């Protein structure tokens, strides 16, 4: 037990150190960027006095270290001040865009698990046979298609095939939840496809490895059905790779959705990020960059911890 807590504590300390470094990197990066937020807001006609007043209002006149601490406090109280470009609180803007990004991540993850697991089981049952070969080649090809290219091609295909299809249709979840889920389906699938290929590859080799192990042979000797062996023995033992894969997949999905949103014209974090970049909205950008990195770090952390709980051997290393 002591060993376990010690392990956890050291992991958590590592996590905190990483987060502080990440926040510092983010802040420093945005402090050295040329471009004056006050000038952006006020336009070319602004007088020096107006600029100074606005800088004071935005806290841009304070020393960097004070700005950093204020920002850090803001990060954890969800109070990042007002967006320079939109004039409303940054946290509100982010919250408003979250449903799309989270929705897409969840749906994409469901696609990944729902498709790659059955396929990899099917494939691994008879390695080297036609089905396995077809899936493997298909996997390699799909892995090479960038999600946004897939999105563009699928929009062209869908427009040609279904007369009623319109890319970029969006429903707010509070207005029409089914419509909301519906309009996220195709984009989520496009993000998921390369990840399905990737997860398939990992799962397949993991299952093949497990299937040839002694205990599976034993179980077969005891007359257990294939299905039972798969569910009770093989899948639980491949969990290590599955959990790791899924957390990596999830962070990739998050990053991938940034571009795919643009193709499908969905109001998610990616669009907000680009709007922020175009308008040099530093309060917005720094907040978003940190939160996205924060989630990524947490995902890796979770994978690390869960992975080591599932497989004690990792912990001992």
């Amino acid at each position, binding site marked *: 037990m002591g060993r376990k807590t010690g392990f956890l504590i050291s992991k958590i300390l590592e996590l905190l150190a990483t987060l502080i470094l990440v926040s510092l990197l983010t802040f420093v990066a945005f402090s050295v960027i*040329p*471009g*004056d937020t006050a*000038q*952006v807001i006020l*336009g*070319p006609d602004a007088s020096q006095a107006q600029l100074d007043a606005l800088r004071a209002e935005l806290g841009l006149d304070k020393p960097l270290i004070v700005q950093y601490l204020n920002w850090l406090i803001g990060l954890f109280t969800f109070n990042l001040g007002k967006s320079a470009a*939109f*004039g*409303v609180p940054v946290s509100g803007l982010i919250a*408003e865009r979250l449903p799309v990004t989270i929705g897409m991540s969840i749906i994409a993850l469901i*696609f990944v698990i*729902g*498709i790659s*697991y*059955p*396929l990899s*089981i*099917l494939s691994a*049952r008879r390695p080297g046979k036609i089905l396995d070969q077809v899936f493997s080649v298909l996997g390699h090809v799909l892995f090479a298609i960038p999600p946004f290219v897939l999105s563009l091609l699928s929009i062209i295909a*869908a427009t040609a095939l*279904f007369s*009623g*299809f*319109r890319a*970029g*249709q*969006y*429903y707010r979840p509070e207005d*029409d939840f*089914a*419509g909301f889920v*519906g*309009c996220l*389906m*195709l984009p989520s*699938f496009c993000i998921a496809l390369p990840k399905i290929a990737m997860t398939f590859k990992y799962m397949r080799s993991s299952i093949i490895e497990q299937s040839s192990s002694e205990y599976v042979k034993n179980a077969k000797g005891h007359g257990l059905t*294939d*299905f039972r062996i798969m569910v009770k023995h093989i899948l639980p033992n491949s969990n290590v790779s599955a959990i790791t894969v899924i957390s990596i997949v999830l962070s990739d999905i998050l990053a991938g959705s940034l571009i795919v949103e643009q193709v499908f*014209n969905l*109001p998610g974090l990616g*669009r907000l990020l680009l709007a922020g970049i*175009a*308008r*040099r909205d530093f309060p917005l950008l720094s907040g978003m960059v940190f939160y996205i990195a924060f989630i990524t770090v947490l995902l890796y952390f979770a994978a690390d911890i869960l992975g080591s709980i599932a497989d004690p051997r990792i912990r001992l290393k």
Partner: protein
Amino acid sequence: MRSFSKIITASVLIASMAFGLASCKSGSTSSGSVTVGITQEPGTFDPFTVVAAGDQEIIFNIYEGLLKYDSKGNLNPCLAKDYEISDSADVYTFTVRDGVKFQNGQELTPNDVVYSLQKAAGLLPDSDGKALVSAFAKVKTVELTKDDPSKVRVTLKEPDSELLSFFTCAIVPAEYDTSSKDPCGTGPFKFENYSISQNVTLSANKDYWGGAPAIDKVVFKICADMDAGLLELQSGTIDIFPHLTKDRADQLSADAYNILDNSSNMVQIFALNNKVEELSNPKVREAINYAIDRSDIIKVTMDGAGVALYAPMSPAMGKWYDSSLDGKYSKDIDKAKSLLAEAGYPDGFDLKVTVPSSYLVHVNTAVELASELSAVGIKLKIEQIDWATWLDEVYSKRNYESTVICLTSDYAPYDVIQRYASDSKDNFINYSNKEVDELIKKLPLTPGEDEKLTIYHQILNIMAEDNASCYIQDPQEMVAVSTKLEGYNVYPMYIQDMYTVKFKTA
């Protein structure tokens, strides 16, 4: 094994169902309510601090001024029954209309007019002395005339006959807090409510002095962008969408929407910095004007929806526009080459064009210009910068060789022209001509419209003679209006007038 195949079938099924879910929605508009799509989050409803064009479009329906534009761009009396300008152009007198009520039921009095104009001019005791309407910085006093209390007299510090258009400035009840969330004017529509990122709702002002509007309710629905607006149009959830590009408007069914052209009253300019060595030579600027094909640029950037320009004023400005300059340059490569040779650049030269990266139209224009100018040996190098840097480096510091941008202005010819005075801070092309400077100075002192017109046309012709810069087009916007509606008027400025809109009777 069978169960695994089932899972696969199921997931494939889910996927295909999902894609089938594309769209099967229909929107309906209850009779009497009109939905207008807008793409900007409203910033403010305070008529004195409003800057965003999108806000002005909404506010036009709520507030009125002493004067009001019509859809032809003419200024007509509104809350003023009539007005006169003294010959010396320094005293404006307005007769306030009787029987007008504010939306809160209060009667409009000349005192409200005095208060509102004083507020706009920064003359109220509690103001910081800064005019909220910057042109009103010239206003010395606003008061009731002694002999007739229904008349309001505005006295200027110096003569200025160019001030009239600013009296469209909103009139509000005296001491009314306009920055509050509850706007109150005399316009045909009352403010109902604003929900962030969703919509702004206005309802008919039944007591409107000009008669109640035909529709009960106007909803300005906020769409994320033009494409989102297009989708709403296609699914019928909005009735009017004012700012569409041609290629998007073309996607709408003619049964459901009428498409109206809307001159945006913008001037797209290929701005040639007159202080750059090569471009300081008028012959070079003339050569550039002959080397380009405006209709090709319009075709590429606007799908053909643009009006070619040869001078700094758009035809949207009505009579102030000088149509005699139409077609001044037509593409002539040989002429351009010989002009360049005369100027000492027979082989052309390298030129940098700095464009704001966020404006696709300007970037595309630069790409097309680069291709066209290469025919006369001018090698255009495109440099893209972000908007903030553009404003700073190009517009304020004038640290550039050439750029492509749209110039916007108030609907006032003086606002269009004043930037070409040598000492204007807006003269970012560094144009300088003494004669033009003199004429621009003369304008505010000239009371008569006809005399003004002569001066404006004189200036436009001198600038054309000088080839001050290269003017390209007034890009057109398309307005989609539901075929269920009639009476919608396109204004040459940022106005969505809902008063004249009504449902067709079957």
